């Protein structure tokens, strides 16, 4: 049967299991929106800004593992998606971004709101499409979802000219995408797996570093089994947090610029580093020449191009983490590593890293620990970018799989609120806390409108230090305290929330912290807490940019070095 491009798009989205999309319409996508009433199973959430839509789709995708969908009109609508698409690219988030384009006869003439969005997003998408005829639309949508969700997930953009939406074509949904140039390796090479097993069985001081790949692959059980069988300490990357329960006896926190000193020091001491679904980002490795200097490296990743990109690898295994670990575990000997584990425990004892000082004023660490205590860790935590993000990652205890949603690779301020909104829409039964900075929050503050209208019960905790704190910390430590352009004059966030009919409390006294968090939890619907915290608190430990992990600063200018 013949259908219009708009109808075809809707049917395809339904076929792909899409239940919600985040977007804003405009001239060239009206035909699509016009067909939405015919497809009530497709829920559309109108956001206030396309960037919010893209991050909401990311939050949805990261909370569920399903593909998130965002929609924008041509021109400025499309360019407003760019940050969200780039964020999804850096953090391997499955996303399909649909943009309207001017009608085909106008393309190339600088028509009103014409922008070359496929050109712009070329280096930040896994793939992208400009649809040139209605008959190819179904195939393209099918391919887009397949590409976004398989192999190493990522964003795919589909740019659809207005007249492709309004023209008709025969509609048959393709059963399976056929892409000759795209064949992700899923099963690891068995001889490589055996080589890795041999190296693990021989290691005296092995260390697992788990990244977001372990979460994407949902390899929680397999990872635990590997660690437990051979008694291997586990640390994670920032994005790997919640791939392994942090209260597990073999968990030793996370590494990198603001990771735990003991985790960073362990990297220096280990004789084998088993990298599971991570990509050796510079924030994770510190100075690359000083990274794991005494270790062999096993690197398991689904993306062959990650192997050897940043560090030398002794045993690469390309494929999906879960089945690889499953096979690997069969060849792993039961071991104890008593000496190594007690060394790790000593490192942790000597460099506790995340103790919280007893203070009279409110410090951010305390707020986050209280959110942890009151939720008993049973919450999805979504953050902005800055100091509060690091404190959230340090002081919340992540035991629940996939419970931290944070912008890692791109470090996108403004990510928190819309991503939390998307996560809550995806998981209405879960408690979702957005731990945001006063600077970050203001970058997508407009989504309070969406949250209010749709009654999305996100609990918001603003760590209000009156600064672009993370930058201020760098100015303090490396630019002799010249605080140029980092001090903020924030509006009264509770009044802002109130204007949207969202209840909120400003918390200035330490004794109010616990009751206010309880109040937010007890109140139905969204709630905003504005915590006025110590303005010049710094995040430690810290590995200065360009330094080796072993050069971690544990406290102001006290260099840690043990042995």
């Amino acid at each position: 049967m013949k259908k219009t491009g708009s109808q075809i798009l809707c049917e395809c989205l339904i076929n792909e299991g899409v239940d919600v999309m985040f977007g804003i319409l405009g001239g060239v996508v009206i035909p699509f929106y016009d067909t939405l009433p015919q497809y009530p199973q497709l829920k559309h959430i109108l956001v206030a800004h396309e960037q919010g839509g893209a991050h909401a789709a990311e939050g949805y995708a990261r909370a569920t593992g399903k593909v998130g969908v965002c929609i924008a009109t041509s021109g400025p609508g499309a360019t407003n998606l760019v940050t969200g698409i780039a964020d999804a690219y850096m953090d391997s988030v499955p996303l399909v971004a649909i943009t309207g384009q001017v009608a085909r006869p106008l393309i190339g003439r600088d028509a009103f709101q014409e922008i070359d969005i496929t050109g712009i997003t070329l280096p930040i998408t896994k793939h992208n499409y400009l649809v040139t005829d209605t008959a190819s639309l179904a195939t393209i949508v099918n391919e887009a979802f397949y590409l976004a969700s398989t192999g190493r997930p990522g964003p795919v953009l589909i740019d659809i000219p207005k007249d492709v939406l309004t023209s008709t074509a025969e509609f048959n949904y393709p059963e399976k995408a056929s892409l000759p140039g795209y064949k992700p390796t899923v099963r690891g090479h068995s001889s490589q797996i055996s080589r890795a097993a041999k190296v693990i069985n021989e290691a005296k001081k092995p260390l697992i570093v788990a990244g977001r790949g372990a979460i994407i692959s949902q390899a929680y059980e397999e990872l635990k089994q590997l660690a437990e069988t051979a008694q291997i300490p586990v640390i994670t990357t920032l994005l790997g947090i919640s791939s392994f329960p942090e209260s597990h006896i073999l968990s030793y926190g996370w590494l990198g610029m603001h990771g735990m000193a003991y985790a960073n020091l362990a990297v220096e001491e280990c004789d084998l580093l088993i990298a599971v679904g991570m990509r050796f980002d510079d924030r994770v490795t510190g100075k690359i020449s000083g990274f794991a200097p005494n270790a062999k490296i096993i690197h398991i990743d689904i993306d062959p191009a990650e192997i050897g990109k940043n560090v030398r690898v002794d045993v690469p295994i390309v494929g999906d983490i879960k089945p690889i670990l499953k096979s690997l575990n069969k060849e792993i000997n039961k071991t104890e590593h008593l000496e190594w584990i007690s060394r790790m425990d000593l490192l942790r004892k000597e460099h506790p890293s995340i103790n919280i000082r007893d203070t009279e004023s409110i410090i951010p660490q305390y707020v986050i620990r209280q959110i942890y205590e009151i939720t008993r860790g049973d919450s999805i935590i979504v953050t902005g970018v800055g100091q509060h993000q690091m404190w959230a990652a340090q002081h919340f205890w992540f035991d629940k799989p996939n419970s931290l949603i944070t912008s890692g690779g791109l470090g996108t301020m403004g990510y928190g609120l819309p991503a939390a909104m998307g996560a809550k829409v995806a998981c209405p039964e879960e408690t979702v806390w957005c731990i945001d900075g006063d600077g970050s929050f203001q970058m997508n503050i407009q989504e309070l409108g969406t949250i209010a209208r749709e009654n999305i019960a996100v609990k918001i905790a603003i760590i209000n230090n009156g600064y672009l704190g993370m930058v201020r910390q760098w100015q303090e430590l490396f630019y002799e305290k010249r605080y140029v352009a980092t001090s903020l004059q924030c509006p009264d966030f509770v009044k802002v929330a109130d204007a949207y009919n969202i209840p909120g409390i400003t918390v200035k006294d330490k004794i109010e912290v616990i009751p206010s968090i309880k109040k937010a939890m007890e109140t139905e619907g969204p709630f905003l807490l504005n915590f006025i915290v110590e303005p010049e608190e710094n995040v430690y430990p810290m590995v200065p940019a360009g330094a080796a992990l072993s050069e971690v600063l544990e406290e102001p200018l006290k260099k840690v070095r043990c042995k």
Partner: protein
Amino acid sequence: MLTAKHTLVAMVTDKPGVLNRAASLFRRRGFNIDSITVGHSELPHVSRMTIVVVGTAAMVEQVRKQLEKLVDVIKVADVTGEGTIIRELALIKVKATPSTRGEIMQIVDIFRAKIIDVSTDSLVIEATGDEDKLSSLYNMLRGFGIKELARTGCVAMVRGGAKSAPIDKESLKDIQ
């Protein structure tokens, strides 16, 4: 670390924009490309690219893998080595007076090149060969005054019966 010239052969689907995707990738990852050519292959809907890149073995392997990651790229092989034929075509417009013409023609003969256009004050020479041959021809002619040079960039093929960048049957089935 040792840098060397590597020749990569890429089999790609002939979708619009595929050259742009490859070029964008090289630029953004800071890979220095000597030359890149694209044209038809023996397979319908499959184009063939030849890329010459200078770098360490590890860097070239990154280029190969990043290229292969592009959805429109089916297969990339590093064909650098003795068993590979590499050819390039050059058109050279050189100044020629009645007194120098004879000498130029001799050089052209030695290089087994061809003169394809003659005018009162110039000659256009067509030459094929590998990089070295074309460069030495160019150097020999430089003294006469080069007016224009156009080189195509390299194409490459491995000797013998095997394919340079074999595509498995599975993928071929998907090409329509």
